[in-house]
Each structure stands twice: as structure tokens, then as C-alpha cells.
């Protein structure tokens, strides 16, 4: 049986260079990634780390860095229960199509029935929707989107 895998494709009116910057620049990620800043030198083998003033954030190491086409990193969950799960992998493919970039996010090597899979399946659509909004309109989606959704899930 195949391992669970999360694949999400979107199309954004931007350039591949701007999208690359949006994925790798901490000042930029903080604005649309609901307050999470990323830091790394983005060399293959280097560590990267997201930080947030109030919430745990993922970290890992860079697997592929081929600007502005392909970025991949390992993904270690942040909270204690997520750390029990295997290290998963995130790959971003950026494909220019005229004045649009097709962005495909693939998150794989996930534990079957794990909490990481549930969490990222909720999280990526929000992050990518906010990323698309900030690149096309200059405004990200509201920062409380992630916390409201988390609360709803906890109440459910």
C-alpha cells in the first residue's frame, strides 16, 4: 500500500523569481505564513528553521535548492507528539507559464494515519492561498485564519 502523500497545485500571477523569494525569505514568509519566519542559507545540506513568537514551527535540512525552479527540504514537526513521527519531505516545483507560475507542493514520506499528515493537509491550502493572495494583491490572508481553523478542529 502506498504511503500517504499530499499534493497541491496552484497557479499564481507572478514570476518564478518572486515566488522563490516568497518561499525562502523570512521577512516575506512572516507576512503570509501566519507569522512563521524561515531562516536558512538555502544550500543543500544546510539546516533551515521556521520560528514563530507563540507557536511551534517546523525545521529540517535543505535537500534540493535549484532557484527559481525546485526547492525541497526535510520536515520535522515541532511539537513533542509530531517529533515521534518520521521525518517527512516537502518539494516545491515552480513552472513558469506565460505571466503565471504553476506551483506544485508535494509533501511525502509521511506516517500512515499520522498527525503530521492531518495537520499539513489542513495547513498547506491555507498557506498557499495566503501566498497566492499576497503575490497577486499585495495582501496576505488574515493572520487569525490558522488559529481560527485550529480552534474549530479542536472543538470538532
Amino acid at each position: 500500500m502506498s504511503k500517504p502523500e499530499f499534493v497541491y497545485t496552484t497557479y499564481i500571477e507572478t514570476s518564478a523569481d518572486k515566488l522563490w523569494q516568497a518561499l525562502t525569505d523570512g521577512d516575506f514568509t512572516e507576512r503570509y505564513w501566519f507569522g512563521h519566519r524561515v531562516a536558512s542559507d538555502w544550500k543543500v545540506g544546510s539546516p533551515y528553521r521556521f520560528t514563530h513568537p507563540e507557536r511551534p514551527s517546523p525545521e529540517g535540512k535543505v535537500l534540493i535548492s535549484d532557484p527559481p525552479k525546485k526547492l525541497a527540504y526535510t520536515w520535522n514537526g515541532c511539537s513533542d507528539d509530531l517529533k515521534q513521527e518520521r521525518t517527512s519531505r516537502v518539494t516545491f516545483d515552480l513552472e513558469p507559464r506565460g505571466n503565471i507560475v504553476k506551483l506544485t507542493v508535494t509533501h511525502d514520506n509521511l506516517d500512515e494515519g499520522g498527525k503530521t499528515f492531518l495537520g499539513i493537509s489542513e495547513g498547506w491550502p491555507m498557506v498557499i492561498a495566503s501566498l497566492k493572495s499576497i503575490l497577486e494583491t499585495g495582501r496576505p490572508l488574515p493572520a487569525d485564519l490558522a488559529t481560527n481553523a485550529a480552534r474549530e478542529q479542536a472543538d470538532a
Partner: protein
Amino acid sequence: MPKPEFIYVTYIETTPEKLWHALTDGNFTERYWFGARLRSDWTVGSSFEMVRSDGTVSDAGKVVECDPPRRLAYTFVNQSDKYRNEFPALATFVLEPYGKLVKLTLTHQGFAEGSKFFQGISKGWPAILSSLKSILETGQPLDIPYAALKLDS
């Protein structure tokens, strides 16, 4: 083996009413849906069609659920020979307000194993729904080249 099913979630800065209009008004869908006008009276049991700019029908099915501005469901299948053995699968749109956003969840299910139409819709929906988000947030749809979908690969 599980049956193929396509699920896509996005968040759009709009109202449920505007999003409902965008999903059901043929003049509006023509702007962001690769030129397709949706045609239906949106009554449960009524016919549902996607109409090309030359007036021919590309896809057809029936309205299954219509609860504005919350839930919309219809079946459809492409009318080309390529899919002549396929059943109309069910596409369900759920609209949930999230503050000043709307969470849109599309679930498309009921495909047979190995369905070619499933492969097509899996490539088509991300493009259509990306263009839908853009037109509602910026006023302009995306100009995605149809070839970018790689429907033949």
C-alpha cells in the same frame, strides 16, 4: 483499493454570495473557466451543461443539490468520445464563511477505477479554482494557457 476522489480546498477573500454567483452565473464563469459558460436553472434534477464559446456543449450532467450560498452539487462528464464509457461523477462545492474569507471545498467523486476523466479533472480543477480566486480577489482571472494543463500527458 480506494476509488479515485479529488479534493481541493482554498480560501478566498470574498462573501459566500459573491462566490455562489461566481460558481453559478454563466457570464461570470466564462471569464475564469477557460471560456466555459455554465448553463442550468439550478433546480435539483435539472440539466447542467458547460457550453463552449461556439455554443457546443463540452460537459453535461444534472443538478443534485442546490442550497445557496452554502452547498452546490452536480454530476457531469465530458461529452467527447474519449470518455464515452464514463459515468457522470459528482462534484460538490461547500462554502463556509471564515471571517472575511470563504473556505471553499470541492469534492469530486464517483469515478470508476482507472477513469481517464478523473485524470483530466485532477489537472483542470486547480487551474479553474486558482483563476476563480484571482478574479474574486483582484477582479482579473488568470490567463493560464490551456496547454499548461498537459491534459494529454
